[in-house]
């Protein structure tokens, strides 16, 4: 596809609104074109993307396209990336048309906004069919607290109450109310919930002797200090205490000597376990315990010394990738017989250039790929890897910010889609490299190209006729945000999430001045 050069002019950031009158006509024209495309092409997804930004007659026309048939309503209700305004309108339609299935689909959609969920609840009723709806509403992360409280107060259904306990957004006071009902099967869920407060956890602890519940209380961030001062009886409880950030060094020392390996492993993971207690764990019979020691952020040089020759490759692998592992040990790991250890060494943040050069010639492609993904590669090593034929290595080169644009342009023509995708994901890829990739066969690639910061809005505008409906929805959504009639230039900038740093890195171009005439 030939790409005519479009004059590019940086936007006057100091006073974007001041320029609005002179450029207002173009966004209006482009907006009208998008609305026309969505309606004339009978494009459900495109219309949905524009609907939140439309007003007046445009919104009416788009709404007629979106909500006219039950088939389309049902399809939209399942779209997790459908705009909130569309889902909110669908909730009203579900009530007007008494469509229970539509309501259930909306309640299942994670993007349905809180006000739409309230509307669904207001008309849900008490029938058997509504049971599923109540359960979904109780579990929905966008459900307003008032709705969740209302559901809790009106239901005895265990499945609905369980859904409430599993909702991460349920507030602490509601969890307390649920605990006070004394329903045994909810106790473990309440003890898991991160919003459960200390008092409720204490009551849960006192109200049961079930290990499954108590272990969760002991693992909870708000677990009362008093419970962490002694060693409990069961293994799950011990494991929870051993993992807890507020467990004392004395208790952790004792837990590090427990018979159960999972408890010892938990103690080995805990940053609070004193160095003295870790010594014995370095020589633990269970490899999983030694792996946990090797992965600690505070691993001491003498521990590295002990574990570097461990028979378990995963112990050596954990050490080799551990930023706390002294650099001098990496010379040993790059010679390890296990390729996984050598790969781990290639990912060590302070792996020296001479070792990286050695790893770049490794027989195993996965090791060379580990090197290729590093941002701190010497130019010679990167050039050497760029001549590799393995796809994983080439993906690493294509993602590397130091790879030359000429090399990226060649990789952008590679037969394997993974390599081309890696080029697209390279934030340093220039517009010249990216432009041919707008014609990628894979819709996801085209969307990623569309969203690349180095493309101009003029380049993006030429992608508006994408044949893939979901890709087109992303494209229309972007232009809906930036071109809609009520959108000011300042709002356009805000919608595009451009930071001051971005502005310095990539001059922002006003879409209104860049798009080619039709």
């Amino acid at each position, binding site marked *: 596809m030939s790409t005519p050069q479009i004059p590019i002019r940086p936007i006057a950031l100091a006073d974007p609104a001041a320029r609005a009158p002179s450029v207002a006509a173009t966004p209006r024209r482009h907006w009208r074109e998008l609305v026309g495309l969505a309606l004339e092409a009978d494009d459900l997804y495109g219309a949905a993307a524009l609907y939140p930004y439309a007003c007046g007659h445009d919104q009416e026309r788009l709404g007629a396209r979106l909500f006219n048939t039950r088939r389309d309503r*049902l399809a939209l209700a399942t779209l997790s990336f459908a705009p909130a305004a569309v889902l909110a309108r669908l909730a009203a339609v579900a009530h007007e048309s008494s469509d229970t299935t539509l309501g259930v*689909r909306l309640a299942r959609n994670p993007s349905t906004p809180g006000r739409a969920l309230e509307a669904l609840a207001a008309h849900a009723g008490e029938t058997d069919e509504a049971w599923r709806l109540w359960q979904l509403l109780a579990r929905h992360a966008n459900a307003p607290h008032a709705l969740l409280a209302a559901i809790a107060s009106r239901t005895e259904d265990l499945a609905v109450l369980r859904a409430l306990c599993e909702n991460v957004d349920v507030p602490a006071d509601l969890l307390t109310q649920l605990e006070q009902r004394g329903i045994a099967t909810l106790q473990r869920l309440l003890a898991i919930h991160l919003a459960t407060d200390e008092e409720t956890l204490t009551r849960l602890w006192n109200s049961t002797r079930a290990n*499954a519940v108590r272990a969760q209380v002991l693992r909870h961030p708000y677990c009362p200090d008093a419970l962490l001062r002694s060693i409990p009886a069961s293994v799950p409880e011990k494991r929870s205490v051993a993992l807890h950030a507020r467990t004392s060094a004395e208790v952790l020392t004792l837990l590090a000597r427990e018979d159960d390996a999972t408890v010892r492993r938990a103690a080995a993971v805990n940053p609070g376990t004193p160095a003295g207690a870790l010594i014995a764990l370095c020589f633990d019979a269970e490899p999983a315990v030694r792996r946990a020691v090797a992965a600690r952020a505070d691993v001491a040089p003498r521990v590295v010394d002990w574990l570097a020759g461990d028979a378990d490759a995963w112990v050596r692998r954990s050490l080799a990738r551990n930023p706390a592992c002294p650099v001098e040990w990496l010379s040993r790991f790059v010679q390890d017989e296990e390729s996984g250890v050598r790969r781990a060494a290639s990912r060590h943040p302070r792996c020296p250039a001479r070792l990286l050069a050695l790893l770049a010639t490794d027989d195993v492609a996965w090791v060379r790929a580990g090197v290729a993904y590093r941002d701190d590669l010497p130019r010679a090593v990167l050039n050497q890897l760029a001549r590799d034929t393995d796809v994983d290595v080439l993906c690493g080169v294509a993602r590397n910010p130091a790879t030359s644009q000429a090399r990226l342009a060649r990789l952008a023509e590679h037969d394997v889609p993974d390599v081309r995708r890696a080029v697209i994901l390279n934030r340093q890829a220039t517009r010249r490299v990216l432009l041919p990739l707008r014609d990628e*066969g894979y819709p996801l690639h085209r969307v990623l190209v569309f969203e690349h910061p180095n493309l101009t809005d003029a380049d993006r505008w030429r992608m508006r006729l994408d*044949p893939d409906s979901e890709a087109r929805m992303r494209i229309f959504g972007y232009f809906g945000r930036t071109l809609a009639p009520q959108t000011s230039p300042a709002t356009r900038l805000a919608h595009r999430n451009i930071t001051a740093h971005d502005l310095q890195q990539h001059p922002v171009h006003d879409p209104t001045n860049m798009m080619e005439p039709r």
Partner: protein
Amino acid sequence: MKILVTIKQVASLDEDFELRDDGRDVEADFHVFDLNEWDHYALEEAMRLKEGAQDAGIEVVVATVGPDSADEELRKCLAKGADRAIRIWSDDLEGADPVGIARVLAALARKEAPDLIFAGVQASDHAYGATGMALAGLLDWPHAAVVAGLDYSPGSPCATVRRELEGGAYATVKVQTPAVLTLQLGINTPRYASLRGIKQAAARSIETLSPAELGVPAGETGAAGSLSRVRRVYVPELGRAQMIDGTPAEQAARLASLIKEFRGEA
């Protein structure tokens, strides 16, 4: 040389759906249409042969039996490089079973006279796995089902196929051509259509034919030409499954009490 690839527009379902009032199918509003997954592989195998022997001048023809909406799936095949697309439909075909569909495809095969016919092993919606083999039976052609590998030189009087059997076993079978092969997933890696191909396919014509134009008698079309009919589609009632919470010991105790309860001992 010509390869006929028979495809199907299949309907997938979301979690919540309703059945038709007559109880014989899912309500049409709940159908989400797409090209049958197996057919991507069948087309790719045809394209692989076409591109591997450019001198042989292989023509790849895709065909389907379906209403207007099936054009979308035919265009996907054109976008990937198929030379022609044919859609056969009349309202009489509503309710046709795999044999009824195969009768129409057999009439098309007699008209087009391909050297090979590729079909998917099955369609993902109804999963009969019968159309391809019924087509071979009606044509009285050699056939091989669940083909996971194909070795064929264009113009050769026979093809060697690797059939997938139970238990991870394979059978290597030599088949005389013309033949009907139903191809299994994984036989190749289907391509994505290029953007240029998609745009060009949008403007290409699709040949539309009726069963009558293919010479299929009215008495053999659709339900009349079928050997089976769907009596009822239903979702079985949920079993009485329940989650057992607690520690392993508590769960085991509860399980033991449930077993005793069902045996009438509790």
